[in-house]
């Protein structure tokens, strides 16, 4: 009798015979499926998208809905609600009753949340502020991620002196306390009286680019470290060695093999990064070294509202609530993404 050779005997194992194997699914598809099942994460995503949409529709709101200009002082303006006309800034208020108190929430489209001490519509300003905060938050997170990925790939892949050099640089930036570096850079770049003169072009002090770049730069080390670690370990994995054995060029290796794996790390990190950058921007703006007048962001509005805190708290509270909602949504989303990509989370089924 012949030696048993499976190919010769023509044993074919199809799905029916093996009792219906689970069809192979890519880890991305599996993750996608788990994410979709996570109702909370989806709700968070929806909330975030809503906030972004509403904020970017700020011009529409202020022009067509509220009929106010949130950047123009309106100190002697009036508001008409249900036939009654009231001045925007009212006499009385403050400890001695001698100050002027802005009108509180009218709950109508005109001055929905009341006015600030310049007579400006708080609700409209909060929306515009949202736009600035989100632009900076998203922009700086993307900037930090991009730079960190580039550096991480180079450092992790080429190793040796390049790696040591880049890592030491990152360590140095990271050793610099985040707040210190941010404040230092911001102070210097923002106090140039005629704007930042970089030779070819002049960046105005109120440009959003300044806080964006500052925050982007200081968080590069934060993203760099996990990326580099991952590239290092991926580089030693068998499939990379196999590709090298097949004569793949460095370029191809980085782009085809390593980058896709790094991508998932970045994706999970991104919502959390944006949450962090938004909080950082609001802190810097609160300290008057973030977004500058005439622009507004959630942080600057809170700072505006500080003087009015005990008399007209709406001004300070409203933007803070927006920050909490946005950051919370991002955190929940980030958690959901992480759980979806982690095969080991033991959840109760059915």
């Amino acid at each position, binding site marked *: 009798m012949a030696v048993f050779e499976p190919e010769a005997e023509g044993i074919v194992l199809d799905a029916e015979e093996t009792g219906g194997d689970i069809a192979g699914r890519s880890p991305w598809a599996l993750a996608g499926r788990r994410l979709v099942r996570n109702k909370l994460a989806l709700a968070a995503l929806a909330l975030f998208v809503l906030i972004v949409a509403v904020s970017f529709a700020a011009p529409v709101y202020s022009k067509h809905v509220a009929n106010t200009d949130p950047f123009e002082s309106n100190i002697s303006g009036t508001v008409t609600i249900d036939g009654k006309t009231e001045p925007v800034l009212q006499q009385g208020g403050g400890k001695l009753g001698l100050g002027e108190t802005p009108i509180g929430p009218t709950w109508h489209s005109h001055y929905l949340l009341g006015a600030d001490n310049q007579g400006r519509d708080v609700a409209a300003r909060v929306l515009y502020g949202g736009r600035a905060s989100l632009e900076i938050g998203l922009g700086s997170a993307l900037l930090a991620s991009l730079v960190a990925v580039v550096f991480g790939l180079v450092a992790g892949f080429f190793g040796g002196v390049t790696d040591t050099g880049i890592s030491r640089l990152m360590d*140095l930036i990271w*050793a610099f306390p985040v*707040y210190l570096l941010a404040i230092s850079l911001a*102070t210097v*770049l923002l106090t140039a009286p005629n704007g930042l003169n*970089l030779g070819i072009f002049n960046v105005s002090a109120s440009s959003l680019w300044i806080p964006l770049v500052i925050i982007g730069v200081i968080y590069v080390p934060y993203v760099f470290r996990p990326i580099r670690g991952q590239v290092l370990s991926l580089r030693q994995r068998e499939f990379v060695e196999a590709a090298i054995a097949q004569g793949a060029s460095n370029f191809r290796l980085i782009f085809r093999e390593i980058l896709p794996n790094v991508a998932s790390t970045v994706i999970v990190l991104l919502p959390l990064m944006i949450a962090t950058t938004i909080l950082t921007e609001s802190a810097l703006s*609160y300290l008057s070294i973030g977004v500058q007048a005439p622009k507004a962001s959630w942080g600057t509005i809170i700072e505006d509202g500080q003087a009015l*805190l005990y008399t007209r708290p709406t001004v*300070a509270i409203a933007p803070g609530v927006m920050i909490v909602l946005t950051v*919370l949504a991002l955190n929940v989303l980030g958690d959901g993404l992480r759980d979806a990509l982690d095969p080991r989370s033991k959840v109760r089924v059915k």
Partner: protein
Amino acid sequence: MATFAIRRALWLLVVLFAISVLVFLIFFATPGVDPARQMAGRNPSAETIKNIKHEFGLDRALPIRYGLMMKHMFISRDLISYGSHTRVIPEILSATPVTLSLVFGAAVIWVIFSILTGVGAAVFRGTVIDPILMILALIGISIPVFWLGEVVNLVTQSRLHDFFLFSWVPPLGYTPLTQDPLMWFEQLVFPWLTLSVLYIGFYARVLRANLIETENEDYIRTARAKGLSERRVLLRHTLRTSMITFVSLFGLDFGILVGGGALLTEVVFGLPGVGLLTYNSLTALDLPVIMTTVIYGAFFITLANALVDLLYAWLDPRVRPA
């Protein structure tokens, strides 16, 4: 072990030097920025600017300026602030106890509560307690600390000040412990609570994640197979190894806060600590104070880094040099 410590000390010095140079360059060598003009105020005359330059040694070459500053800071220790014209070092020394009071108190609160929350969530995993605790933690890390401080002030100083719960809250400020312990305490209670909220949220999440991850380790399975009670497995095995990460992170955060990272809390609650001092000096371009506070801050942070490394070796025998 000795060579390890010496190497770390040398690296500490290198880092401090690098940071001081970096700060110096940022403030005095950034293109497009003229500090003398800045310090001269609005519409200065050329004469004023020249005087300022000379007075502060700004017309000398960069390295000389840096050298002079370092000499004043460390050797003669008579560095004078540009703004207040008083000596810098005593200024920092008087601000330090404020920051230390704030950070220590907050740290005690946050360590206790984050451990309770993290362990509670991990132990009650599968019940409704876990998600509730985690949502609370999530909210904690989503609130900007300065805004929270404002809201707390609004409630305790203004809106509910007459309510019995908050009537004892004194006006914002700081009283040294040696002067009036009760006042010191009362003025710090809400700053402590406000500062801890963020950290409780963060550390509870970290701890819970660590506990759950450690649960899957083989040696936990062995511990159960030994017939140990669940509580013992949790406390002596799971928690013990999870605390390694917890303690490392704590050390770093503590270092940052002591070095001036609590400045937002100090600003909101009117506490004249190192953070507030740093911030004021930065915005006023008061370079001597800036340099000193930055070095002070960097020193503490790098020191904390080194201590954490040592602590890590103590907690995790695998890392110890053979």
